[in-house]
């Protein structure tokens, strides 16, 4: 754990900032000051102050963008917008480092060509996690696991990859295991109307859930 990660977290001690951070993170796109203020029920100047504190702490990043299509005189200055910043923060007290060990283990599984054993273990883990969860719907379990689900074209997509660092170093292994874990979540919930599949695209988790094709 880096000491600045702990400092970043302490910025979130303020409940207004926490609400603003959660709101911006959940949108998955650039958010203006007005929108953030309205959504969290605080004044615009107060929202702006706290949003900039979150930028200073590195939890959000800011940009300037025209929020409407108008151009030229009268279209106004570009507005300041915010989005979640890329780098991840981990705070563990006392310090723990599961990431380095996970990287080593992923390397071992790759070398042993243990993809299918990895997927089997991930499927069992998903099943256990879902069965042990207090949540009973897929969406709630996905939220609990940090996937940040959202709906698009009748399918459930996942905004966040909980295994991002490993998915960058061992993408095929980790994405295959992630799919298997998601299949396990469905099984653990007894949810047989949905099916999980890989549909990777940049910046998101690789798995999507769709209604089972019962026509075939």
């Amino acid at each position, binding site marked *: 754990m880096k000491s600045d990660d702990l400092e970043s977290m302490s910025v979130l001690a303020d409940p207004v900032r926490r609400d603003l951070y959660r709101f911006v993170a959940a949108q998955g796109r650039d958010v203006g000051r007005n929108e953030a203020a309205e959504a969290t029920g605080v004044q615009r100047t107060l929202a702006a102050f706290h949003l900039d504190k979150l930028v200073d702490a590195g939890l959000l990043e800011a940009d300037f963008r025209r929020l409407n299509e108008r151009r030229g005189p009268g279209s106004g200055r570009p507005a300041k917008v915010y989005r979640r910043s890329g780098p991840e923060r981990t705070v563990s007290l006392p310090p723990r480092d599961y990431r380095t060990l996970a990287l080593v283990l992923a390397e071992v599984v790759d070398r042993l*060509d243990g993809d299918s054993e990895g997927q089997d273990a991930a499927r069992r883990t998903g099943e256990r996690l879902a069965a042990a969860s207090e949540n009973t719907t897929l969406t709630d379990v996905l939220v609990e696991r940090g996937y940040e689900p959202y709906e698009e074209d009748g399918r459930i997509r996942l905004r966040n990859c909980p295994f991002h660092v490993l998915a960058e*170093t061992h993408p*095929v292994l980790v*994405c*295959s295991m992630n*799919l298997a874990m998601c299949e396990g979540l469905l099984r653990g919930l007894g949810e047989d109307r949905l099916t999980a599949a890989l*549909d*990777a695209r940049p*910046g998101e988790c*690789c798995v999507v859930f769709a209604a089972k094709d019962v026509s075939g």
Partner: protein
Amino acid sequence: MHLAQLNVAHLIAPIDGPELADFVAALEPIYAIADSAPGFVWRMKQSDDPTEVITHEYGDDLLVNVSVWESREALWNFVYRSPHLELLRRRREWFLRTAVPYTLMWWVPEGHVPTLGEAMERLESLRTRGPGPEAFTFKEFYEPGAAGASPSRAEIPQ
């Protein structure tokens, strides 16, 4: 500079056999995704057949593809962040596992069209001498013009 890549795979069965049917069926849509992917520059073709498999003198069981991309990110997003990922997930159904590297990259001047011979020589270099500026991988990646420079290792956790 543009990023060229070679990928080789040893088929477990003849390309026109039932074992490879799912893979062959996926070729046309995957080629179409590659051709329209952001940052795609070129890929090796021998005909207009949308399901073409490159023929060559390195053995009938060896599947090869060579392509050129604008950047590491463009190639990465096609390989791992598109429907191509599903083919990689299922690779053991169609290809033999190899203990030696089966994919590599190198930088080429814009407009350069790599040949298969050039690509295979670089694969040999990667296999015998390990990664370097003339033949490298995603894991041990070299920036363009960085002869003698150390790779930017993606593996090291921050």
